[in-house]
């Protein structure tokens, strides 16, 4: 079995959950991966200080799309305050595959976008 391109990764890549747009939405952000030009945006609907619903849009590699898809399921229902606390480890653990230094930004792009939309902090998660 492939270490990186596991079945569930390819499944999330090919059938991403929560992809599309959400209109109206309360929060949004759009970020690029400067290494490859990939683009990922998010729309978020907020209720009671938590993420009621969200949708990703844009394009990217299997790692970045699968990461966004997998994360989207966890983010729904999360308190906004919690989102601000999420670090790189959370995302990498969730992905469950070994991510090389170069592909790290692919894996973290969605978290950067979501944190950017929620907290206004546009730094890469560490």
């Amino acid at each position, binding site marked *: 079995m492939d270490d990186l391109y596991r079945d569930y990764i*390819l499944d999330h890549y090919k059938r991403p959950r929560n992809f599309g747009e959400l209109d109206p939405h309360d929060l949004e952000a759009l970020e690029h991966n400067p290494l490859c030009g990939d683009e990922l945006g998010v729309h978020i609907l907020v209720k009671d200080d938590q993420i009621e619903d969200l949708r990703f849009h844009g394009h990217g590699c*299997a790692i970045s799309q699968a990461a966004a898809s997998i994360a989207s399921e966890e983010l729904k229902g999360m308190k906004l305050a919690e989102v601000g606390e999420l670090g790189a480890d959370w995302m990498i653990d969730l992905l469950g595959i070994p991510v090389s230094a170069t592909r790290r930004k692919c894996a973290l792009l969605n978290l950067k976008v979501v944190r950017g939309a929620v907290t206004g902090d546009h730094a890469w998660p560490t």
Partner: protein
Amino acid sequence: MPPVAESTLSVRADFPILQRRPNGRPLIYLDSAATSQKPEAVIAAIADHLREHNANVHRGVYALAQEADAAFEGARTRIAAFVNADPLTTIFTKNVTEAINLIAYSWGRANVHEGDAVLVTQAEHHANLVPWQVLCRERGATLRYLEVDEHGGLSLDALDRELERGDVRLVAFAHVSNVLGTINPIAEIAGRARAAGALTVIDGAQGVPQLPVDVAAIGADFYAWTGHKALGPTGIGVLHGRREVLERMEPFLTGGDMIASVDFDGATWGELPSKFEAGTQPIAEAVGLAAAVDYLAALGMERVREHEQALTARMLEGLAAVPGLRVVGPLDAAARGGLASFTIEGLHPHDVAELCDREGVCIRAGHHCAQPLMRCLGVGATARASIGVYNEQADIDALVHALQSARGVFGLDGSRNGAAA
């Protein structure tokens, strides 16, 4: 398509890094457009210089400094001769990016005014694009883009129409596109620009490593290239300029070694090429680059070109057999340099590159520092395989094999359950 000669080059053994066997497989390096590998002759020349002849140049009286001087200025002479340029107008920079910035700052700020235009092509590398954006913004000038057609070509008629508008002060374009592979008709473009009173800047980053280049015959005002793509070391670029233009320009970087004299009130500038070479130059790097051009000259650039064209033809053939694969740029190997950028349906370029690496095949994925072109092509990124003198047919075949396997991993060949998607 004319029949292409089989390549007669077989120099893999000259390149130490290609003897590496990651995971017990041969290293298949197909990323020469990003940077080339170095023959032992270049590595040895640098090490030998540092072990035997190192001193600062231009001002030392002692014998060791004279050796260093002779090595450095001798390197300049050999490098200039390699592309038939004058050593006096052959300026060292740190890379081609600095060379183009030098022109934008020194020539551009003095000569591009409000209402003027700078013309570039849609296919330029950021190095030959962003400096012109910055210049035009600062000077209140307009940056216009020459369209690239669906075969990756430029239209000379469109060029003429742009030039006829009468406001174009400078035309900047690549000798060989690092994405499309297109070999541009540079002497023709330079001639038309010159006739219209515009200066020309040619980004030769992908030209010098692959093609015989005759700077004098091309007749551009500036021709710039970069050492590390031409079998030389990092840390050195080369700018050839037209003498009258260079002489009228103010210097770019100022400091030691580029002055005639300095007093408290100001300074006067040294002669060419010193005027544009402030501070300690890339001395060992010049020695290394001279060894690189000597190596290329010994192979013969005509033969290098034949070799790359033969392998490119084979690559285009191989790629055509991969389902869902689309190559951008001209489809005739005679019209392009030794590289191919492509997309594969259902596979992101990053994943393509990652999966190629599993088979020891090094290719690049991304926007290749040409984001506007990516937009024109309607893609976010491409994968790119590029050829060097050291590549062989087996490398090309390994690439095609790796691409087929990559499709398999993603179930695109119907072999994996995910395939249904």
